[in-house]
């Protein structure tokens, strides 16, 4: 049975976005790393800002990190982003910027799942899990480390 996802999905505008989400679909978290100077750069871009190389390898990174910062989006001012309106019942949305472990400490944006808000704070350890939201899209989600798996 086809699984559909009603919320805003990636637009695949950024040159590395297809690759990022293809890896997530395979349940792998990979970040572009410059083959010349080994710098991690995320979001992906064409040229390495450190050595000006243009060859990248998508390196698997730890699915462990800490909360870099976060917010609880209360659903104000939807008109400012007409392409990405969310249905009112989806709010509040917990947005988390996660600093991953490992070289370069790359950061990704994700959501906190399962109502862990009371455990959430800057610096808290989180694990990244894979959430298959539809047949062709997997999103990374964060769980505060040590909290129980729902369902």
């Amino acid at each position: 049975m086809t699984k559909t996802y009603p919320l805003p999905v990636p637009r695949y505008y950024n040159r590395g976005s297809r690759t990022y989400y293809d890896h997530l679909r395979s349940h792998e978290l990979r970040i572009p790393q410059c083959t010349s100077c080994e710098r991690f750069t995320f979001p992906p871009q064409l040229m390495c800002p450190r050595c000006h190389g243009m060859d990248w390898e998508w390196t698997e990174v730890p699915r462990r990190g800490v909360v870099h910062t976060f917010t609880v989006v209360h659903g104000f001012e939807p008109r400012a982003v007409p392409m990405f309106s969310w249905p009112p019942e989806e709010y509040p949305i917990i947005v988390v910027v996660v600093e991953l472990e490992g070289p370069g400490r790359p950061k990704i944006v994700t959501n906190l799942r399962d109502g862990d808000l009371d455990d959430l704070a800057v610096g808290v350890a989180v694990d990244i899990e894979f959430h298959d939201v539809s047949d062709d899209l997997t999103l990374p989600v964060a769980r505060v480390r040590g909290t129980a798996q729902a369902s």
Partner: protein
Amino acid sequence: MSGFSGATAIAGYGETEYWTGTERDQLRLTLDAITAAAADAGIDVTDIDGIVRYSIDGSANDQLLVSNLGLQDLGFSVEIPFYGGSACAAVGSAAAAVHAGLAGAVLVYRAFSLLDMTEFAKRNSASVWAMQAGVADYMRPYGWLSMMDTYALTFESHAARYGTTTRQLGEIAVAIRENANRNPNALLHDVPLTLEDHESASLVSGRLTVDDVTLSDCEGAAAVIVTRADDAISPDRPAVTIRAAAAGLGRDPSLNWEMHLFRDDPTISPAAWAAPKLFAMADMTPADIDVAQMYDCATVNVLLQLEDYGFCAKGEGGSFVEDGNVALGGSLPITTSGGMLAEASNHGFNHVIEAVKQMRGESHSQVDDAATCLVTSSIPTPTSSLILARA
């Protein structure tokens, strides 16, 4: 002094009233502000020989202005990209052009209408920059939707590092609202705000409330005329010279605007890199500034700028505002028109106008004997700033 410090001046300004939701004609507003600015500068409109504008795109573009105003020999016309960070860079660019002899009377303006919040916002989300940078791929699908979310993320980072409180943000909101309550042209002129009101206001994103973020859907226009300082001398009022201008993207410029939150320390804004250049050109220190028109799209951004421009150490912005420094009568009154929080939102050009008023002694929240005024544009990236002085 160095660069073009003191060589140019803001010879005149004009502005309309501000409204919300009236669907006024943006071109009409712009022409009204420009003719007022030219009259204030004591020049004929057709003496304008340069234009600097800053986007988002609007119906009042420079081609339309040239044809409507009947300008005969426009020799300098540039556009500074990127919204709220650009007002001071636009004035700085005009000053550099005048100083270099490229033009003698340069118009800088900003018009705002509902179109900016609707049609142009759609284009903004699909702009080449937003597409390439990955906003639509790595942020929007997770519910990071608006600039309010960006500021809330910034605040949590600052609060975690330095113990900054929402009540300290409230000090900024209240100080700026009190200024608006003295300014009849401010949209929130008759809406008082207390610290208690601020603490109980509706949440927008994270712990930021409606009183922490800019007004929206504003309409209105404002314009200034930049000339050589010698051409701006009037027997009727003090001249307002441009003592310094600076702009900056800060370090690691690949992480622009919202992606600033991907930096290791998002509490340090690009103003930290613009500020030393600015004060060096003016040959001043923060202690020499009498009043500051801080860009206030969000209270937390004011807090970061107070630190990054050196009025207090990094992390001490909260206690700085709690000690009453930024209210009228304090050591550094800020955003004396009511700013974007309470006067009108027009990407910070009202801050430039208010700085001129302070230097001429015309503000509704006049700082006694004010002779120097800092003006800032939005953070994080890019940003820009000015120091104006009463000559």
